[in-house]
């Protein structure tokens, strides 16, 4: 995925479009992440000003939601469903296999790849499920995921 490099000018433009909406903090942070791939710490004060709330409020929202991140994303992201329906068809094994194939641990991240758990992708009759850069994969194997990531990078 391609993101704009962070700059406060570009961030201001993003915030201009969101800060007037009702309940603007979360959508402002989401819009910043869409644009830049993450929400740098220095954005907190900008969002607070634009939305007329305290920095503490913004920090609170930024740290509450699993989706929001404060560091740049790796090139590829693999999210593996670890909830019950996928457990029943081998998601624990899929996680182990994926950790081996990708050479990284769950919830760890480097510049190239991150493996993250997700609790349900709504594909519960075709598990185990995973999402590679936003693309949903059913009946997933670690090799499928690895091939897909290689094809994308």
């Amino acid at each position, binding site marked *: 995925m391609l993101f704009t490099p962070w700059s406060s000018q570009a961030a201001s433009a993003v915030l201009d479009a969101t800060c007037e909406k*009702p*309940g*603007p*903090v*979360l*959508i*402002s942070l*989401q819009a910043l992440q869409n644009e830049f791939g993450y929400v740098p710490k220095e954005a907190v004060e900008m969002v607070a000003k634009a*939305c007329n709330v305290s920095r503490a*409020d913004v920090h*609170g*929202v930024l740290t*509450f*939601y*699993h*989706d*929001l991140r404060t560091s740049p994303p790796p090139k590829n992201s693999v999210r593996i*469903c670890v*909830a*019950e*329906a*996928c*457990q*029943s*068809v081998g998601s624990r094994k899929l996680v182990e296999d994926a950790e081996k194939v990708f050479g990284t641990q769950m919830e760890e991240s480097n510049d190239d790849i991150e493996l993250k758990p*997700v*609790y*349900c*992708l*709504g*594909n*519960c*009759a*075709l*598990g185990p*499920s995973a*999402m590679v850069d*936003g693309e*949903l*994969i*059913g*009946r997933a194997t670690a090799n499928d995921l690895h091939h897909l990531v290689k094809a994308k990078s």
Partner: protein
Amino acid sequence: MSIRIYVPKDAAVRSIGADLVALAIEAESARRGLSIDIVRNGTRGALWLEPMVEVETNEGRVAYGPVTVADVDSLFDSSFHTGGRHKLSLGLTEDIAWLARQDRVTFARVGVIDPLSLADYQEHGGLVGLRRALTLQQEEIVTEVTQSGLRGRGGAGFPAGIKWRTVMATASDQKFICCNADEGDSGTFADRMLMEGDPFTLLEGMTIAGLAVGATEAVVYIRSEYPAAYATVNQAIKLARAFGWLGENVLGSGRAFNIRTRLGGGSYVCGEETAMLESIEGKRGVVRSKPPLPAIFGLFGKPTVINNVLTLATVPAILADGADAYMARGVGRSVGTQVFQLAGNIARGGIVETAFGVTLGELVNDFGAGTLSGLPLRAVQVGGPLGAYLPVSSLNVSMDYESLLAAGGMLGHGGVVVFDESVDMAQQAKFAMEFCAVESCGKCTPCRLGSTRGAETILKIMNGEDVQGNKKLLLDLCEVMTDGSLCAMGGLTPLPVRSAMLHFNEDFDRRARA
């Protein structure tokens, strides 16, 4: 005339190759000089037959599945585009027994129509309910919904009409309709399929709700794990606005109704209605104390109807066909149909919409055809991660709100997750606590701390450490969480834990002996 071929666009079907199948059909028909028109419909819900390709013929729609790219050549060789026989032939779609046995009300159009065609939508009965609602008084709409017996499909099962009446009767300059599309329960996907397969039905239900209670603004809160549903609903809203349905003059009635969407942030607890309101207001998804009820003090402090996707999507059919037709289905106080979702280790998974009162065994064995692995069935979790684990001896339970409660479980959002004998129920119990620890909003202590202590205690039991003492401690903790938590997250996490201990005690005791 060009041939109409349906290849589902539903995210689940795309996850197993539907896009490639559609591309291959397009390429092959071009190579053969055939004029075809590919419609990307929703899924019929028989996920075990997907990707299922349908062809329109004079006799009706003929189905083939599961189709892979490798089958496309031979399908054309067998003239499937005119309904020819092939090894993947399933016959007329409407005659497929698995589908024919169902009673589709909420899902009547899902998989049948082009999800974003308003022409298709109206040809199949769309907007009839709304047009009727526009001729009724607020009071009459609320009465119709109340009389239908429709209860909240999100999990709590609260009568929709009574909630609507409270909002209608509360005076305010502004009221809201909020659709809870934060379908986070593992084993559930009906909201997603409806939003992707028939989004106009949801918008119609919301518009009717708005007319009924006097709200002109509405929000659909969709979880971020459902990017396709989010995109489809946004597109449907745009089309409905251009059509003159949504906006300042609903179908020329002079009444206003606007719908916008909000995307979740990957937080399970935001499916709890008050946490969802906080999230829509842009704040941390922290649960509110009740009272005040959202029907009186909801979004931005205004009276708010909060209903699940399936609840709202059922309203158009009730208005179109009348309350009596709906309440003729079901058992006891669980009237109408429920959209069950067969998931996990199941041979024939997917959507089964049928009247309340079907048994769990019928769902798992008759529709589901047992486990996918072929190993014996051991446990079924009904109602999501906060629902009970039921043993094989409970398969005769009737699937309705009251019977499941009596059996020590809950219906929840209608998810049915099947496990074979390889499951370790102590591990499942531990996961329930761990999930609660990850997703707790942190507001109340029993949930925030209890979940972590619970996971630690189950680990001790799994390690064979003072098993009897720790089991007693765990039950105590479950009692505190059940009675002392603010919302269902902490309050119901003990349900899977306790049911696992009750029905599968051997998995907890095994380690003591080992």
